[in-house]
Every structure is written in structure tokens, then in C-alpha cells.
């Protein structure tokens, strides 16, 4: 069985950003959710440079969803709890799709089960989402130790400086503030010197 592309929050954010207005996405949450939503929202907000608003649907009517979503028309909004939505709720969302239209991006936070319901009961919303469905992944987000060492070696080679000298200059407050020096300090575990 094939599957949707897996992307970390960072890449999903880039996709949202390049699209501009009226973007619709589905993000398939990891099976073990512990903190995944908060991390995703924080990551997305960072990339978009504006807060992503979380709209909860659990136990609320479609009318409430509509009014919550349109509280602001232009900010990116993420709708949660739709895994609990039954066929009637999806159907109500589907026939009233126009009421959910907004300039800001709409991200639906779903499990595979929730996605199957969306595709089964809400063909008009599925059509809006199209192929913009991504598994939320974390691979590639963090640097491995080898990658870190390689990167430090590159910086040392280019600037013809040893890492120890960079730390010394950082401690003396004379290290330039350019981003690559910031990166260098962080790679050395000395983010406190920034």
C-alpha cells in the first residue's frame, strides 16, 4: 500500500508559506500523540512567523466551528478533534464548505481513521484538500553527531579559525553576530554565549 509523503513541521510550513492564501491541508498526526500537536503548532508558527490558532471542535456544533474559524479570517488555523466527528458532522461540514472558506490557511489535524471519514463523507472538502495530505514526521529534523562534526569542520576550514578561538571570542564579547557564528556557537553547545 502506498502512503502520503512524510514531512516534518518545518517543511509543511514552507509549503503553506509558498501557497499564500486559501490553502487547505491535512496533517496526519503520529499514532503516539504526546506533545505532537503542541510541537507541530510551535514549529509551524516559527516558520510562518505568526501564531497558528488552534480551533477545537470536540463537542461543539458546526455553527460554533464556523464562528470560531472566522473569528479572524486571515491567520493560519488548525482544526483539531475531528477524529471524533461522525458521518453527520462531516456531512454538515461538507455541504456547508463555503461557510468555512477563509483567506488564512486551514489545517485539519487528523488520524488515518479521521482521514478515511473525511474522504468517505465529505467529498467536497476532500476535493478542496486534493493531494495536500502529509504524514507528520520528525526524521531529518535533528542533526546527527557526525553531521554536527562535519559542519564544525566546514566552518573552521572556511573561517580559518579553531572552535576554541570562537568560544574565546564569544566569551570576550568580540565575536561577530552574524548567523554562521551563532550557528557555530550553538553547534559547540555554547548557545549561552550568543
Amino acid at each position, binding site marked *: 500500500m*502506498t*502512503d*502520503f509523503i512524510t514531512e*516534518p513541521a*518545518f*517543511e509543511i510550513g514552507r*509549503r503553506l508559506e*509558498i*501557497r*499564500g*492564501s*486559501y*490553502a487547505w491541508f491535512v496533517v496526519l498526526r503520529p499514532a503516539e500523540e504526546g506533545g505532537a500537536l503542541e510541537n507541530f503548532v*510551535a514549529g509551524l*508558527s*516559527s*516558520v510562518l512567523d505568526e501564531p497558528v490558532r488552534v480551533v477545537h471542535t470536540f463537542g461543539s456544533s*458546526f455553527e460554533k466551528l464556523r464562528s470560531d474559524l472566522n473569528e479572524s479570517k486571515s491567520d493560519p488555523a488548525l482544526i483539531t478533534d475531528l477524529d471524533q466527528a461522525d458521518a453527520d458532522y462531516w*456531512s*454538515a461540514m461538507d*455541504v*456547508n*464548505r*463555503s*461557510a468555512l*472558506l477563509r483567506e488564512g490557511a486551514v489545517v485539519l489535524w487528523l488520524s488515518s481513521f479521521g*482521514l*478515511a*471519514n473525511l*474522504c*468517505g*463523507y465529505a*467529498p*467536497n472538502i*476532500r*476535493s478542496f*484538500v*486534493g*493531494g*495536500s*495530505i502529509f504524514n507528520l514526521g520528525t526524521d*531529518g529534523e*535533528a*542533526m546527527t553527531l557526525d*553531521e554536527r562534526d562535519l559542519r564544525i569542520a*566546514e*566552518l573552521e576550514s*572556511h573561517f580559518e579559525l579553531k572552535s576554541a578561538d570562537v568560544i574565546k571570542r564569544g566569551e570576550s564579547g568580540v565575536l561577530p*553576530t*552574524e*548567523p*554562521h557564528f*551563532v*550557528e557555530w*556557537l*550553538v*553547534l559547540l553547545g555554547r*548557545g*549561552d554565549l*550568543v
Partner: protein
Amino acid sequence: MRASRRWSAARDSSARRATVSLVCRRRWSDGSAGSNRPFWVRLEIRLGSNSASKPIICHIVEAPPDDSTARAVKKAQIGECPIPPRLTRFRLEPRMYTRTWDFMPPTVSKSKQATQRRERFREYMRKLNPTAPARITIESGLVVEELHGSLFKTLAARADLEPGSQQLLVGGTGSGKTTELLMAEKWLDQQGQTLSLYIDISSETDLSGLNSGALLAGFGLHLTKAFSSKGFEDDLGDTDKRTLKSARTEIKEFAFGKTTSIWVSDDEYDFEPPDDYDDPSDQEQGHYVTQKVPGKLKPPFPALQRDIQAIREPLEAFITAIRTRPLDIVIIFDGLDRLPSPDRFWAVVHQDFRALRRLRVGVMAAAPLSVLYGEGRTVSDHFDRVHQIRALSPEPEQSGYLESVMSHRAGTDLLRPDMVKLICRSSGGVLRDLITLARDAGEAAYIEGAEQILVQHVNAAAAQLGESYLRGLGPEQISTLKRLKKERSFDVASRPNVELLVTGRVLEYSPTDFRVHPALEPMLPKPVPK
């Protein structure tokens, strides 16, 4: 400047107590050298030492895929690139680190290149936005008018020539119905003989609970609004103005409901007065009760024929005033195609449309595709004409219309002609899918750092779309699709099959030509070898 100030704040106010964390990710190509995909670094800076707090800066550094270490070193030797390889573009520059550019001029040109590339892709994405409101797309000049044989003109001309006629427009999801209806409205407006009113009813009220009278209520509200906005009131006499003011109030109450206070005599209640109650015999015993009458746009509540009659008179007052201009009235109802079945559609429209016919108001309405098949045909029989938007042929020799959409919207800057053909074929001739695929392929190219859309980008977009069509299908539906693929047989009278048509998994090219959506077809599970 905002970012620059925040950066300073992080350094100064926290006295070196900012927490800087780095998240880095590299995109290697199939485990090879990694030189053809971008490299990314992300820095997050937080005030204080709480790593869970919200970052005040997210700094992203991108390096172009073609800047190999060797080339960068060479550039550095000749003074072209005085910064590290793979760190040659700063996404937030020059806003954030303005000072940097004073002594790193070559990087400015790099940054400009990056900005230009991003703007090129952004412009492409803006023109290919399948979820942007159709009215914006039309106003931006992005619509190819003759796409469906100028269907909008056929619709509008019929409404123009036969006042009070009722027409339906049906088609699969994303086939372009809204665009055709809006173009018809525009065309009628240009002719100057008709007052046309477009209403997307689902954006105004809860369509899932829609009941008889709601369409008339929506029509009434739009009619009174248009009457005022077009200045029709200006040359009316005082009597007419009073009549229309009263009619407007009735229409509003019909739509939104009203609250009245009515006197209720205590005789109607089982009221036992207290022993010390002083009975003023000259007063009738009773009290006021507030009674709320719900409006038609606040569902659900039962439909009553007498309600429809009640709204007829105030509507007629406005219609008569408009006809003296002289203008015909055409109402265009969009969104009704999303009602899940012909029965539901008919339950919502039949009383209201009958009233509109009596008022000789022309109607165009989007309707579910299912009114064309099986039991649904009894619904379509009630209308003067039913127009169908079929999927356009995606075959290379017949895909001219689809290709014209692409060249009209996207040009050839990012899309080569062979990629246009590939996108057309994968779309199955469904307009929204065509635009979705083109956008998604462009997005994939941008993310990967490519300068043009390549075959792998189109294929990735088509696979994602096909997978989304596959989800939610049960074993029986998958068997039907497999049978259609293999034997080309499809029973259009069966209700589950109609659902496959409505949801766009099966596309109709002619009354005898049904096919599985080309993006979905390769996703269907393969038979397990025995």
C-alpha cells in the same frame, strides 16, 4: 527591522541569557552526494533559559543545491564568496542582518536570486490556486471562457429569453460549476436587461438543516439589498416607499425570525389566585408573553406551505417595482449541488422553486450530479433544462482546452509543454484537479530547489491526489472500480455507482464512456498472485 530589534532584545535585555537552539535538516538525494537538494539550518532563539517558551526568532538559512563545497571554495579564493559554503542565502535577510550586507556584497546578489526565485514560484502558485474564490479568479482574468463550450452563455441566454425559466447545472465535484454560474451572472449583468442575483446559500445558512422557505428568504434578502444598492428607491413616491419598507421588514422577519409580545388572558391558564389577592374587577386578568418566531435561515424546523404563501406578497412588491424599470429577475443558487441526494435536494427546493415560478423569477441552480441518474431523473424532469458539465477529455490529441487553461494561468516559465500534457492526463479533465496538480507539482519543485517543474514533481503530485481518492473507499467500491478499469463496464443506475461519479472517482466523458480517475487508477490494490 522588527526582526532586527527582536534580535537585539534577545542579546541585550537577557544579558547573554538567551537560549539558542539549533535544528538542522539536510535533504540528500537518494543517499548520493546531496548536491542537488537544498540544505537547511534552523535556529530558534528564546529569551531566558526556558527551552519550552515560544521562540522569539526563528532563523532559517538555506543554501542553493548547486553550490558544492569545491565551487564555493573556488569562489572564496577569487573573492566572490566570503562566507561559508552552503550558507549563502538568508531567508530573513537583509531585514534581519542589514549590517552584514555592508561587507558581504556578493551575497546580496545571491539573496536577490533567492527572492526572485521565490517570487516566481509565488506568482505561479497565486495563479494556480484551486481553492481561491471563483469570483476572484474571474476578476483576475484567469478563466478560459469557452472551456465548456461557453456554457455560461447558454445558461444566461435561456434565462434572458425565457423569463421565469428554471435551469439546473450539474457536474462532479470541482468541475467548474460555480465559475460557470458566476460568468452567467456577469453576462446577464452586461446585457443590462436583467437583475441577476448570485447566492451561495451554504455560505449564508446551514445547508444541512435547510428547509422549505430558506431559499425564498435568501432571495428576498438579496433582492432588497440589490434594490437599495442600485438606487431603485430614489425615484419612488412616498406610498411606494412605505409599502416597500413594510415588505422589507416582513422579508427580514421571515428570514431571521421575530420576537413579539402577546397578551395572554389568565382565563387560558389554570391560574389559582392567592387568598389575599385583591381582584380589581375593572381589569382583565392576564400578562404579556414573549413569543419567538424562528426565521427561515435558522434551521431546523418543519416546513409549512402557508409560510411560503406569507412571503409571497412582500416579495411581489419588490418584484413589481423592479419590473417597472423594466428588468427581469434571475436568481442563481449555488451550493445546492452539495446536498447529498436527489431526495434531499428536492425536499429543499420544490416549494420555493414553485413559488419562484409563480412569481416569474428565473432560476439557475447548481444541483447534485445524481439527479441525472436512476431515481434522480424524476427530479430533473421538473426543470426546463438540465445542463451537465462533463470531465474534459485528457487524451493528448484532444486536450487542447485543458492545455489552454494551463497556458492561460501558468505560462511556460516553470512548466514545459511535456509537463503540461502530463498534468492534463493525470487530472482526468477535472478542472480543480488540473489546477491542484499544477500547483502541487510547482510546490514540490520549489521545495526541492528546482528551477522548473520536472516529471518527478508531477508524478509525486498525482500520487498524492490518487491516494486521497483511494481513502475512504470500501471493498465493494474498489471492486467496482477494478471492474470498470478491466472491463469498462459501469452500471450508472446503481446508487453506489452514482456516488463514485459524484465524488469524482469515476469520470463521465460521454453517456457511454466512464473511466476511473487516472490519478486513482494506479493506486487501486493489485490482485494478490495465487
